[in-house]
């Protein structure tokens, strides 16, 4: 079972407590009533679905209930890092480093 780090609970918790909630960092247009149907469709329906590193929203549904963002590799299903909702996109290189720190903590090599 995957362990996912919840930034609100501050620890790794089993994946069964979590739910995926779509792509992250999609900003709602300020002038939503004025944009064209096509622009609205792009905002509302169109998603990148990249192969590789993706930025996603997740929810700790059966835990603290909070939404947060995660950087996940959609090929290996490895979580590179997680961060609180509203925080800016982390640098992926940083994320990879942070993940190494997390991993070493997990092995008790603090």
């Amino acid at each position, binding site marked *: 079972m995957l362990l996912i780090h919840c930034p609100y609970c501050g620890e790794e918790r089993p994946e069964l407590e979590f739910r995926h909630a779509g792509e992250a960092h999609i900003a709602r247009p300020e002038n939503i009533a004025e944009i064209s149907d096509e622009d609205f469709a792009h905002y509302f329906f169109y998603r990148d679905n990249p192969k590789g590193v993706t930025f996603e929203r997740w929810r700790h549904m059966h835990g603290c209930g*909070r939404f947060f963002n995660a950087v996940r590799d959609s090929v290996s299903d490895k979580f590179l890092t997680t961060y609180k909702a509203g925080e800016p996109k982390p640098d992926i290189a940083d994320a990879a480093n942070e993940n190494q720190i997390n991993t070493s903590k997990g092995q008790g090599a603090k």
Partner: protein
Amino acid sequence: MAEAQIARELPLAGRAAGGASVSITPAEPAMRVSLRAPQESIAAVSKGLGIDLPTRPKQSAVAGARSVLWLGPDEWLVIEEGDRDPMADLARATALHSAVDVSHRNTAILVTGTQVADVLNAGCPQDLSLEAFPVGACSRTVMGKIEVVLFRTAEDAFRVECWRSFSDYAFEFLRDAARGL
């Protein structure tokens, strides 16, 4: 007019399960409140409730017959096993908060014994070792197919809060788990 006869029946009344190393029994009736409050209200709500709301993940606070369990950054579960109504106490706090009486939504199962963590881990994937989940720790999590709130009241005792309509499932799940020890 004849006075209405209201007798409250617990969904798990009369049941018991377990064996030598673990015992599973329904908890006594209790009052419960689902409490939400923003950061700014925590001091005022704590004062009304008579307990400082815990602010760290998995932390709980107990005073007399009343326990407050941290469920999320702005969410708590209040359990009152005595007869002081927590809703009345919370009504005195004027700071912004939301308190919903969920006494009849929830019921609880007490699981005790030396192998209590093994029984719960049959359906709950969380680390329930004493290092990760010490006495007083609490958490909303999953057990089998349902959501529960776990509260460790002693090294060998857990309170499993579940929804009333799921209580039969929860109880039988624990009974089966205990059989496998």
